[in-house]
């Protein structure tokens, strides 16, 4: 995983991406529209963020059909879970170090 100078995961620098990872951390699988409910951004914007996370292999995509309509579901990969945990732990460490 690519890290920033302070040890945080580079792919999660953008808050929307961090938000997507947070939502997928507690949901097994969500489709695009359910995911969209949690963010105040447009379809194209969200799709771009998802693509970026997918490229890093932090999230996986499963394409199915509901009737004739394509339905894309997103889930967190093992690598994504590791990166997410690392990110959260690093954030906590940084704050603890600054406080103490």
């Amino acid at each position, binding site marked *: 995983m690519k890290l920033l100078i302070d040890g945080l995961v580079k792919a999660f620098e953008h808050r929307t991406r961090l938000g997507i990872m947070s939502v997928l951390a*507690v949901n097994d699988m969500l489709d695009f529209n359910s995911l969209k409910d949690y963010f105040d951004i447009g379809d194209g914007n969200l799709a771009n963020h998802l693509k970026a996370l997918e490229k890093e292999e932090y999230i996986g995509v499963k394409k199915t059909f509901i009737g004739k309509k394509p339905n894309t579901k997103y889930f967190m990969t093992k690598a994504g879970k590791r990166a997410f945990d690392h990110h959260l732990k690093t954030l906590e460490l940084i704050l603890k170090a600054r406080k103490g």
Partner: protein
Amino acid sequence: MKEEQDYIQDIAEMRSMMERSSRFLSLSGFAGIMAGIYALAGAFIVYKVFHFNPDQLAYDSQPEGLLPAGLLPVIFVALGVLVLAIGTAVILSSKKAHKRREKFWNSTTKRLVYHMAVPLVAGGLLVLILLAKGFIGLIAPCTLLFYGLALYNASKFTYEEVKSLGLINIVLGLTGCYFVQYGLLCWAIGFGLVHIIYGIYMHYRYER
């Protein structure tokens, strides 16, 4: 390097996103109070007006027809209470969701409804069976028992206080099954009084 404020906000964002997407937090406390009032009114009507207060498990004085005489209005009152309570909960919760700038029918709502539906449908079918077999005394406590199970089951997906609400209703339901003569009283306490107290608590804790 980011500022300390940014780090704190990052963590806050993660926590809030995880909570918002895993728990249904638009449940309205006021809807609980209203449901309690409907239930108390319903229990009062069936007791005072229709003199419904079964004191034994089974009644088998029904030579023809499926229902014992006089039971039909009681069933209508019960269904009325149910429809009013659910309707109020849906309307007030969707208002609250709107205020929180969320969609009412999102993935957390679906999950909550699904996890409540399984015990509720099972309980509903059991009540129909009890009704058909003449076990009138068990009906009110059984609705309470299965409602409690549904709440307990769904509490993972909403406010954690719902779990204790479920447990209280399970205990009251079982009590009513054993002391059949107090079945309606338990029902009025569980659906009425407990809902009102719970609704007031939730309203003051989360909605002010």
